[in-house]
């Protein structure tokens, strides 16, 4: 069975995914773009709930490529989150968790975009490079990085 695309609804449900720190702060700066959609957040820090209330916040364990076992737990948790939320669109500002969410949401027919962190001024992050094989759209916030890497440039969070 080939991957399918769910019929488009008039409403859009967006799952916005970011790890802690700068990834999360950059995601927050994108909030006006979500206006009119039903937004769910997935992140690693429980105190994010207060920041984006009343939007629902789903938590996953933080991990990176150096913490392989935790990464597996992250993947399992994100699979549950994606299956429950059933997003039409997934937007992530990284890092590893965002890539994993995109990969799984894609299997369920969601459209997905990965915005690489503005911190990656010279080259795409590992997560962004992985996302290039899974996401509909991978954006860099630096025109030169986009030109070199095959990512696209649509502006920056700052």
């Amino acid at each position: 069975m080939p991957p399918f695309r769910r019929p488009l609804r008039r409403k859009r449900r967006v799952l916005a995914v970011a790890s802690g720190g700068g990834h999360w702060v950059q995601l927050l700066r994108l909030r006006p773009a979500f206006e009119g959609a039903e937004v769910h957040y997935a992140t690693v820090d429980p105190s994010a709930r207060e920041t984006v209330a009343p939007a629902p916040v789903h938590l996953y364990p933080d991990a990176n490529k150096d913490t392989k076992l935790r990464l597996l737990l992250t993947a399992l948790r994100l699979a549950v989150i994606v299956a429950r939320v059933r997003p039409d669109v997934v937007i992530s500002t990284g890092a590893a968790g965002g890539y994993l969410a995109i990969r799984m949401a894609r299997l369920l027919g969601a459209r997905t975009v990965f915005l690489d962190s503005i911190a990656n001024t010279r080259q795409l992050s590992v997560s962004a490079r992985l996302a290039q094989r899974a996401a509909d759209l991978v954006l860099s916030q630096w025109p030169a990085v986009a030109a070199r890497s095959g990512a696209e440039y649509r502006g920056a969070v700052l």
Partner: protein
Amino acid sequence: MIFATVGTQLPFDRLLLALDTWAAMHRDVPVLAQTGASDTTYAHLTCQNFMDQRRYADCVAEARVIVSHAGMGSILTAIEAGKPVILMPRRADLGEHRNDHQRDTAAEMAALSNVTVVEDSTALCQALNAALARGKDAKLAASSAVAPTPLLEALRAFIWSEEVTPAPRRLGPLLRA
């Protein structure tokens, strides 16, 4: 109050030690540090390993100057609050991070008017003295808490697009498995 923040993932004792030295010579200025994974104690800093988002925002709002590693969360939060921020990038050769991307980030962010980039403890102390000498009246424009319009419009268009793009072929075998 000076607020220092080094993120949550990795220790950054070079920054904290420099700040502790400065604080020892400036007992009248309280220094609060969010120290993350560091387990060193500092005599002249009020340390807290982790903060929730509200507490962190409150500390940034109260601070006269922010001293930070070159992490984007710290930089963006300081800029949004219109605070002067002194960045000390982590160095991979000192085991402070997996790679040197913070040095690249700091070099780019140095163009912002509230940002001063320092490489060592001497420069950090000088930058702190200079920032405090500018006084409370040095008005820094609190910058917008949202991304510029072009990026927001691009993402809004993506969310509401009616376009159905073909799924990548790589996922085919994965689904059949």
